[in-house]
């Protein structure tokens, strides 16, 4: 009996251990499974993304009203249902060449820490949730003009996607 009790205890211990082990595993799986929303877009032939939490709206290309005195990478302002928003030409900001023809251009309306601005992109490719664990630090081979604004990169449909940090972009403009 004593052995049985000991055996039972051992058994319950074993069961508890197994339960704890499983819970631990689940929590590990949870971490791996933590998702983040990203808005994937293209500039020239490359794919980039913003974290979805900072993108409030995707707008079609609309009339941009030039504001004299602004830096070249801010082509002007737009009227979004009566609200006036600035627009950033992100290619110019990053020192990338202008595309010869942009057929599916969009304006991503970004908001972070109270700063709002539209950001011109060549196209919106996808809005998806990806595992946070799939985001890795960016390669050192990125050009210096872009590297300062990169939050990481991930692979989507066999293509490398570079995540741009909206806060760093706004921070550079406002500094």
């Amino acid at each position, binding site marked *: 009996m004593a052995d049985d009790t000991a055996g039972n205890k051992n058994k319950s211990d074993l069961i508890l251990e197994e339960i704890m082990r499983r819970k631990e595993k689940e929590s590990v799986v949870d971490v791996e499974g933590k998702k983040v929303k990203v808005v994937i877009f293209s500039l020239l032939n490359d794919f980039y993304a913003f974290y979805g939490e900072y993108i409030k709206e995707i707008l079609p290309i609309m*009339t941009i*009203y*030039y*504001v*004299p*005195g*602004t*830096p*070249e*990478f*801010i082509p002007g*302002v737009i*009227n979004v249902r*009566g*609200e*006036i*928003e*600035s627009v*950033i030409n992100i290619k*110019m*900001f*990053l*020192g990338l060449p202008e595309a010869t023809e942009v057929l599916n251009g969009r304006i991503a309306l970004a908001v972070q820490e*109270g*700063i*709002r*601005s539209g950001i011109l992109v060549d196209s919106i490719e996808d809005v998806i949730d990806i595992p946070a664990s799939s985001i890795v630090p960016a390669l050192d081979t990125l050009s210096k*003009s872009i590297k300062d604004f990169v939050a990481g990169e991930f692979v989507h449909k066999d293509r490398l996607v570079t995540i741009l940090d909206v806060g760093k972009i*706004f921070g*550079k*403009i*406002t500094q």
Partner: protein
Amino acid sequence: MIKRALHESHCPQMIRILTFTVMGVKMGVDTEQIGGIWEVDEARRLGTVIHYFHEKIFFRDRAAEYHAPKAMLVKDGDKEYSLVIDNPDDIIEVGIESIQPLPSLIALPGTAGAFWGAVANDQGIVLLVDFSRMKNGCMNKELDAQAI
């Protein structure tokens, strides 16, 4: 209560705006800043100092073009000068609730300094300019040099 009444008495609820265009950009100025509008030759004949608008505000690489230039007498404190604009358009009354501050990236110090707000209407966006903020002329040229 008294403070509130004073505050309300100092803030107009409507302003009269003269709208005009310079190099395709529609702008508006409080009519209280203007002493009159006449032909550029007439302003020269009267001997006022004449500035062209693009000399005061940097238009980046846009070529200076005036299709229907008019000289606006600007009252800036105790000084007066003529400012050449293009296409004076209309005088409209605007309620202050219709005026929006410029977006924060546009309203940065030294960026579009002379512009203090905007009015969006069916025709587009009218930038509100304050001539008393234009004292430093083309200071904004420096900004492009700072761009990445």
